[in-house]
């Protein structure tokens, strides 16, 4: 048993840090730090291009598709260093969701057509899984796709579409056989967002932002060639995708970054000269969450180690999701507490309002990507065997 990284891994980490210090544009870093989303599409794609130029565009892809071929440990180091350095999060919908499906189940033509746009930072993808009536219970989705010659004709509605307002492509689960049992009649198709009949309607959120959308499909024609794999076999691909979505699910890097921010706030003297950190109750809450984060780092490394030996991501990722999101949510609540009344000034640009925005926005963490209740069901059934 050895918890430390190897000298090679430490060298790699230092290389990543040096690269981040050098290559991450200051203005992008500043906008990420201040939650300024006005240029989110440009920033994310620009950063993707910078990474791609370095050969690091897809840390989780195999070399044959242009990925780095890194092992899980290096992926972990890379993602957490990026997050800690306020780099924009790489868009997961292309890189981590649809790409693994295309690599595994797509035709060579599909692979050549779609993968380069993702890694090179040209195409913005979004997800078309959830529907208003099908969230946790994904298999109850209703969006129809009727065959018409070489095309499917799509009608229906997708919901909780994150950042789809910027998207070039959307991958959709659609119902191609309405007679079949829920999980049997589903297909997996790739849809050009410029197709006639698509309407994107932003949903205003709790924190006032518009991060997710409803996407309406009204007789949208999609070439059958854009279907992945077999007709009505989409559920298999969907589950494969959901398994890959769960990489770096603990969000250690983001929590480290926010914890650092929390400590900055709490150690800055307030108007009356006192510091939050000198309140033992508050300091203990900060120390407690830092302790749990430290434990989760080790837990995360344990899961990575086991996955590397067993090859497949297991249900242990559910533990990382639950505790990782709880920790980040608690840090964000502590940031609000540390600001006190200043956090009320919401429409004022400043750290107080940023903390409040973060607190409200991050309530999503325990809801999306498989709610924490669903994760507990997974643990119950797949680990505890109940």
């Amino acid at each position, binding site marked *: 048993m050895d918890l430390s990284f190897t000298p090679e891994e430490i060298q790699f980490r230092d290389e990543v840090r040096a690269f981040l210090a050098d290559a991450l544009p200051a203005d992008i870093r500043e906008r990420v730090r201040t939650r300024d989303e006005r240029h989110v599409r440009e920033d994310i794609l620009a950063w993707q291009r910078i990474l791609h130029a370095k050969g690091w565009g897809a840390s989780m892809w195999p070399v044959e598709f242009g990925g780095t071929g890194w092992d899980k440990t290096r992926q972990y180091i890379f993602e957490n260093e990026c997050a800690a350095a306020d780099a924009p999060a790489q868009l997961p919908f292309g890189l981590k969701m649809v790409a693994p499906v295309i690599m595994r189940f797509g035709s060579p033509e599909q692979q050549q057509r779609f993968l380069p746009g993702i890694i090179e930072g040209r195409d913005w993808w979004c997800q078309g899984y*959830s529907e208003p*009536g099908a*969230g*946790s*219970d994904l298999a*109850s989705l209703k969006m129809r796709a009727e065959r018409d010659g070489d095309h499917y004709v799509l009608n229906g509605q997708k*919901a*909780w579409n994150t950042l789809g307002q910027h998207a070039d492509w959307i991958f959709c689960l659609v119902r191609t056989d309405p007679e079949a049992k829920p999980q049997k009649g589903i297909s997996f198709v790739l849809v050009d967002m410029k197709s006639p009949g698509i309407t994107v309607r932003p*949903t*205003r*959120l*709790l924190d*006032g932002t518009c991060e*997710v959308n409803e996407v309406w499909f009204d007789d949208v024609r999609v070439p059958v060639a854009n279907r992945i794999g077999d007709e009505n076999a989409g559920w298999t691909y969907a589950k494969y995708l959901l398994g890959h979505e769960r990489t770096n699910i603990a969000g250690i890097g983001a929590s480290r970054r926010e914890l650092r921010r929390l400590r900055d706030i709490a150690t800055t003297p307030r*108007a*009356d000269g006192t510091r939050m950190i000198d*309140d033992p*109750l*508050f300091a203990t809450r900060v120390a407690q969450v830092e302790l749990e984060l430290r434990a989760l780092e080790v837990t995360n490394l344990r899961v990575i180690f086991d996955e590397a030996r067993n090859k497949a991501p297991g249900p242990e990722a559910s533990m990382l999701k639950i505790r990782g999101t709880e920790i980040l949510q608690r840090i964000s*609540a502590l940031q*609000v*507490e540390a600001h*006190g*009344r*200043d*956090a*009320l*000034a*919401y*429409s*004022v640009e400043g750290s107080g*309002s940023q903390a*409040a925005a973060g*607190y*409200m926005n991050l*309530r*999503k963490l*325990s*809801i*999306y990507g498989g*709610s*924490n*209740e669903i994760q*507990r069901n997974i643990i119950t059934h797949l680990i505890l065997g109940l």
Partner: protein
Amino acid sequence: MDFSFSEEQQMLQDMTERFVAGRYGFEARERIRASAAGWSPDLWRELGELGLLALAVPEADGGIDAGPVGTMLVARAMGAGLLLEPFIASAVVATTAVARCPAGEGRDALLAAMLAGEQLVVPLDEVLPTPGTIAATQEDTGWRLRGRKPVVYHAPIADVLLVAAHHDGRTALFAVPRTATGVEIESFRTLDDAVAGRVTLDLVVGMDACLSTDAGEALGEAFDRGLAAFCADALGSMERALQATLEYARSRVQFGVPIGRFQALQHRLADMLVQLEQARSMTYLATSSLDEADITDRRAALSGAKALVGQAARAIAQESVQLHGGMGMTDELDVSHHFRRLTAFELRHGSTDAHLRAWREHSLGT
């Protein structure tokens, strides 16, 4: 021991609930929220006509003196209705403070205008201010007021700011027109959608602007009443958040059944109810304590209530959003607005931690 409400109290509650139902539906509120002003002066006048702005004022001063319980019921209904108007700041805190200042022409006229909804008077503070934040110095022509308050709810829409300022170890109270030269207000919206401002004062006001040169007790009383009403506001908000969550749990179907049938969620809803009822009890206790002569005991009850209601507010707000799933994250349902109101609750009128510490010191002496 009697937990029933008098006919008059019940009438006040019904009236407020009717007002909320009739004037403050989701769409109506959204229009007010989206407006440039961020509140409705028309509805404010209507509250004045209903007498709701005169609740906290003795009959001798033209008020209706509804007592702590009447105020509690009104505030609860307004919290349930997510009112954006400055009811507690103006019609509880400011009226109480002004009414307790020595009678005189300026004070009497101001009070009358407040009760009628003609003058919106808003205090700079929600708790007794730390000495020195705003300093008052007497000059030949009047009083010089200097200082700064970073977050003052409703300041940009007030006609008059109620300024507590220290001089010679005492707290004096001033009525300062918002538009006076030397009053600067940087306006913003709060996280719960109220209009608020950063207020900087540097001006000389006339002698008649001073409502009292020794207003510490009057202010203490005003903030106490405001705190109790604020707990009631949160209580109403929590009630609605839980109710909305229960309705959602009954109607939202996943895996072929309403999610309210999942026992793990049921038990969490049961715990939310227990927290709500505990918060209700402390709100009742805080309200009752306002008639308590011993100020130490009163402040303990109030601090205890603020702390416990604050804890319940956080838990119920978080769980309500969580159990709504993605829908809880949108601003299209009441629940996210209650989440924000309850989040603000913890930060206003003294934080949860500050009040828990005050309760601890009263209870344990350490």
